[in-house]
């Protein structure tokens, strides 16, 4: 995601400027910078997402958008946590300064897990794909779409003391969805179908060799989400036309 050129990181918001724990830049997208830090106590690891001001935007507009987006992301995360969907919890935020601090999710991304897996472990992969579908299904069941589903936006969190297994390259663990910057609350089948379609396309391009496994994702999705039938039917339409409509004029 980040460009090759190094841009200066934005000034850190207040509670973190005095932190003794060094901040590590994890990634820099178009919208936000993500740091690893600690929150309140030095032993509570946290992910800090900062939305730096955009100098080309009118300052009034910039503040309005930052506020809306910080709040929208935090609200979606809070809703998911309340409804029992595995997401990082919100620890703190400031819409004035444009940051959200979230629980740090241990483990690797699903992308890394799939790439680094033991190729012989067909069953493990199958199970992982089902759990991925299950996570998306539970998300959709509570009326939330993610907006940017990819295997890099899913973490594989080691469960209980089986943590070592996760480290060792196994495919066990709980799926935790992250990066809700484009998420929204919706009741529309179309939005859910597009969400799945985006995942399908991203999965195909990131893991071409495992593309045939996407059916397992949909299986897991159906188990976890009662309203899946309509969404999957709609997915057929979306597949036919692509995410984009045909152009007029």
């Amino acid at each position, binding site marked *: 995601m980040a460009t090759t050129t190094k841009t200066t990181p934005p000034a850190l918001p207040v509670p973190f400027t005095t932190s003794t724990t060094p901040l590590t830049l994890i990634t820099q997208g*178009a919208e936000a910078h993500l740091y690893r830090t600690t929150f309140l106590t030095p032993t509570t690891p946290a992910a800090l997402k900062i939305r730096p001001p955009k100098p080309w935007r009118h300052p009034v*507009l910039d503040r309005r958008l930052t506020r809306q987006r910080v709040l929208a992301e935090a609200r979606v995360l809070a809703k998911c946590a309340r409804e029992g969907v595995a997401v990082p919890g919100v620890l703190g935020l400031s819409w004035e300064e444009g940051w959200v601090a979230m629980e740090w999710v241990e483990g690797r991304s699903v992308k890394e897990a799939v790439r680094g897996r033991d190729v012989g472990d067909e069953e493990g992969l199958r199970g992982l794909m089902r759990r991925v579908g299950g996570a998306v299904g539970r998300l959709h069941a509570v009326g939330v779409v993610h907006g940017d589903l990819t295997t890099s936006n899913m973490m594989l969190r080691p469960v209980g003391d089986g943590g070592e297994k996760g480290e060792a390259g196994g495919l066990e663990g709980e799926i935790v969805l992250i990066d809700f910057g484009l998420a929204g609350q919706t009741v529309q089948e179309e939005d859910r179908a597009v969400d799945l379609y985006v995942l399908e396309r991203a999965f195909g391009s990131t893991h071409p060799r495992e593309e045939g496994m996407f059916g397992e994702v949909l299986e897991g999705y159906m188990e976890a989400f009662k309203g899946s039938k309509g969404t999957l039917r709609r997915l057929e339409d979306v597949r036919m036309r692509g995410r984009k409509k045909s152009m007029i004029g």
Partner: protein
Amino acid sequence: MPIAIGLEGSANKLGVGVILHPTSTPPSPHDSAHSDEDSPQSRKKAYSPPAQILSNLRHTFVSPPGTGFLPKDTAAHHRRWVVRLVKQAMKQAKVKLEDVDCICYTKGPGMGAPLNAVAVAARTLSQLWNKPLVGVNHCVGHIEMGRAITGAENPVVLYVSGGNTQVIAYSAQRYRIFGEALDIAVGNCLDRFARVLNISNDPAPGYNIEQMAKKGKHLIELPYTVKGMDVSFSGILASVEELARKLEKSKSSDAPWLDAESGEPITREDLCFTLQENVFAMLVEITERAMAHVGANQVLIVGGVGCNERLQDMMGLMASERGGSVYATDERFCIDNGIMIAQAGLLAWRMGFKTTLEESTTTQRFRTDEPLINWRD
């Protein structure tokens, strides 16, 4: 040396241009007369020397303030002017008829009647002069002309005009659309807003909005509708039209509409300023997202709205933050023109592409990712 004539008339501009591609043989190791100054850049230039614009003429159908251009009237305008423009363009280009290799015309997308009027002219020339036809995708024309003029090699392209709003990046011989307007185009939003305020359509409504916006300073809240890499403008248009009516009403009443913070009256200029700030911020945002996605740091702005200097400045700020730069052209190439059709058509012709008379139709729908861009790696 390949020469093409291009005819464009997908909207209210009729354009005719003549282009020449200087051919060059790749320099052989023995041919080292200028090897001292053979920097990597000049060598690249030697492989593909810049296209030469021999003539580039345009005539615009301008409708009265408060109205837009209708397909029927626009087609009549194109029919009335096309012969004069072709004659003049050929005269100015000083090329002999036998040196022209192909006749390029806009196949689409655009308004049906104007497209057809120009396609008929192109077919006629093709029969009369016995030259092959090349049907060109209008959007690809904009992109190729922008690349040729600015020298941007592999930029993310923001194509913004009265009919189109797209964020495009090149990949595997197609111009892929990463984001686009889900309803009306940004230029259409500006044009229709100009009609509500009775802003002149001469030379272009967007130009007049830009000049007025320079005097505006109060930002009024408008919807901001970005969905991932897509945008939507119809709700913004409805809102800003409502604001314009509110302004007119407050003028005729005793209670003027004042800015909440400064207490100064809201003006027409403020509305233009507000609209521009809002929609351009949206465009820069989706462009930045596409750049982050593909890992590019060059951005090229094409299309009529691309002339807007405020949009260029905002884009420049964004690009420089990402360690890159913005490429834009002036009104000769930003606004619809014949030369861009000639440019894209000639590139295709040199790869062996031709449009037979039977196939020389037009289409109102023609997506940017349909044509095969086989002249690029």
